[in-house]
């Protein structure tokens, strides 16, 4: 029984692996279903490597199990020696050369696919977005728009358009990753990185992949790839919702959805919410008090955004102390 267990384990592993390939991307046996050409080409490279590595894996584990079964002691004494074989130069050269060939094929295929992954296809009107990783939210600037537009947490783009992303960070390293839309790129303070995607219609989730501090796990991002019309609609109306977006995407992470407090203090009753100038100061510069620190979450925001935030919190979050709730 003891000797059969490893072969059983291997059989289960192999069954799982082949089942995974058969279901193509379901269950986590391949990267999530691609919705952008770069992700598709990464997927092909993944499958090629999976093919070779799975074959080598099965070869090694099968030989291991076969040798374990075939050459087991069967009660022979420890003093009985096995075949005193010291090596076999030709055989050893074969298993040196054979991986070299496989690796050369893999590397060749990676270089073949690379242009499709690294560079966006030439498009008449690529859309330019600046992605700013920030403790602890993603901010998107729509730099093509005649009037500047911005969103927090959700990026709105037209499906099928080539989207060119400029990825930056003002504070710590973050890493931009929407699995369905291609690989990661770090947002590094002091550097500007680039990536791109061309999304099929749909909504795609991702999150910051590089440890960026206490709320790393909350730094989610969504890409909404909809119609050209809804994209233009967002650009025209972004100022109507930006206050709410900021509250939900930035403030609520620490202070709770209703300002009831969480990691940060409760602020729903704080009259500061009714003083736009003081509020802007705190949000823009951060707090370094003895009670704990608040990062300068709004150090790249415009006056319009502070205004939108101030008006949103005054209307929707602020509850004067003593006021009865409900009613």
């Amino acid at each position, binding site marked *: 029984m003891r000797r059969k267990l490893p072969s059983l384990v*291997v059989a289960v592993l192999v069954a799982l692996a082949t089942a995974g390939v058969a279901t193509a991307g379901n269950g*986590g046996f391949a990267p999530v279903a691609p919705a952008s050409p770069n992700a598709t080409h*990464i997927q092909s490279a993944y499958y090629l490597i999976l093919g*070779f590595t799975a074959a080598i894996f099965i070869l090694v*584990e099968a030989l291991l199990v076969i040798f374990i079964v075939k050459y087991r002691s069967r009660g022979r004494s420890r003093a009985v020696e096995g075949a005193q*074989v010291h090596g076999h130069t030709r055989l050893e050269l074969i298993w040196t050369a054979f991986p070299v060939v496989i690796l050369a094929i893999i590397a060749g295929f990676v270089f073949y696919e690379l242009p499709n992954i690294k560079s966006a296809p030439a498009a008449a009107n690529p859309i330019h977005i600046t992605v700013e990783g920030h403790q602890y939210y993603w901010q998107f600037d729509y730099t093509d728009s005649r009037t500047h537009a911005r969103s927090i947490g959700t990026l709105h783009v037209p499906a099928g358009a080539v989207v060119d992303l400029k990825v930056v960070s003002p504070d710590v390293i973050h890493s931009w990753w929407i699995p369905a839309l291609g690989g990661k790129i770090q947002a590094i303070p002091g550097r500007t990185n680039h990536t791109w995607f061309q999304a099929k219609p749909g909504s795609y989730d991702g999150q910051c992949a590089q440890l960026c501090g206490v709320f790393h796990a909350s730094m989610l991002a969504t890409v909404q790839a909809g119609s050209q019309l809804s994209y233009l609609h967002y650009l025209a109306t972004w100022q109507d919702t930006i206050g709410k977006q900021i509250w939900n995407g930035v403030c609520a992470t620490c202070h709770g959805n209703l300002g009831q407090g969480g990691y940060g203090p409760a602020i729903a009753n704080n009259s500061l919410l009714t003083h736009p100038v003081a509020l802007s100061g705190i949000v823009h510069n951060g707090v370094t008090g003895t009670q704990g*620190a608040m990062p300068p979450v709004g150090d790249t925001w415009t006056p319009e955004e502070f205004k939108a935030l101030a008006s949103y919190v005054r209307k929707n979050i602020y509850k004067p102390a003593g006021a009865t709730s409900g009613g």
Partner: protein
Amino acid sequence: MAARSEAAYPVGWKNGRVASWLVTVDHKRIGILYIATSLVWFVAGGILALLMRAQLATPNETFLTKNSYNEVMTMHGTTMIFLVVIPILAGFANFLVPLMIGARDMAFPRLNALSYWLFVLGGIVLWLSWFSKGGAAHAGWWSYPTLSENFPWTSPGHGQDYWILSIHILSLSSLLGAINFIVTIHNMRAPGMTWMRMPLFVWAIETYAIVLLVALPALSAAVTLLLLDRTVGTHFFIPSQGGSIVLYQHMFWFFGHPEVYVMVLPVFGMISEILPVFSRKPIFGYKAIAFSTIAIAFFSMLVWAHHMFTTGLPVGLDSFFMLSSMIIAVPTGIKIFNWLATTWRGNLIFDTPMLFALGFIALFTMGGLSGIFLAAFPVDWQLNDSYYVVAHFHYVLFGGSAFGFFGGLYYWWPKMFGRMLDERLGKWHFWLLFVGFNLTFLPQHMLGLLGMVRRVYTYHHGGIWEVYNLISSIGSGVMAVATLVFLVNVWRTNFLRKGIRAGNDPWLADTLEWYTTSPPPPHNFDSVPYVTSARPLRDLRRRLAEQPQ
């Protein structure tokens, strides 16, 4: 002879049961101290891992969140790497190298003791950081700036400073140890023991020590600059004032990747000792294994930026580091196939050391192959910083290093203490650990591909995410039980003295450490036979068998 060695400690109190361990400069005792201390940290680091798996068992849990999770995660990684794997291998090297080469002790016994006590000090400093202002370091074991810088919203307080101090102390300890090993191996081999007759474990320690010498200074420099940034207001790594974060990444990984091989080369050496003995065969292709060790060590210093594929390096650099990383797979593959061939037509005896060695091959192969995906840089753009990477390096560092050193413990335990660990408990230990390990880490490959990033204290998806995470957490519990079985085994063998007494050479092994008594006397050998091959003990057994009665 034994009586004379006590004269080395003329002062009475130094011969006490505890004091004799505190003042010892005997490489065997220092080796045992290293191993025992590392096992204590192994339990501590393992408890941290269990806390994390408890938090991640189901979505949106609140058991251990935010900064507490980040502290536990950082301390788990730092502890397992710097206080468990590296020092336990240093412990094996201390105990075994002089015995294997037929020497009286290490070249510099006092320096050796200093290495050990610096390791103890480094561990204490690291764990004291829990009590420092602001808690323990929580920027991950890489401590990338600017998260590790002294801003109010990154890493204020002193946890990060303790971390840096501890890394400095531990680096010094490793550096002194490395020099000691190199000098010992070069100068103190038994008569007749040429380089090509040296045990493969000694080959591994030679390369391990050289890699440490080359790689550690980069780490020391990086954390020194970080310390200056944090304490005296320099800005080496603060971009807003002209510093460069990517510079830190280069410095860290110039150390960090060779470090991986520091943690696995000595284990390769152990496997190359254990497999032949329990296959009753010579190692298949001694030279190929020795030279592939050197090749791995050399290339390990040329692959560091494969940890940085997502920092936006130029395509030329990405390509170079992909090719160099893939090249490492070749000598590693040579080892795997040579080990397999070692079992071919053998008389395989499945004692616990052999189970761990075979388990090592099964699991390390998985870790090596998953690494090829990460070397192909566009695929790494998908997998980097996800749970796939967590799974990959645990297959290398636990399935590889830890299975290897457990095998080593069962194999050399009789030499260290004169008693065999219990075989029944040993087999329970192996099977529980093997099953628990795969339950824990196999599903993490899938989680990473599904999009779960590493170092998050929670996730919001139910369904298959929850299933995989739950399996993983259950597996971690099974591994904990396995470790308890091992500790019971140690307790039973050494403290209840129920372990079977071992003779000089209970496994009918090949190398010189089995020539002396178990445990060896303080001076190791009364005499050392002239070494005529890589298997001096087998030669001796054959010569004895051929002698006319």
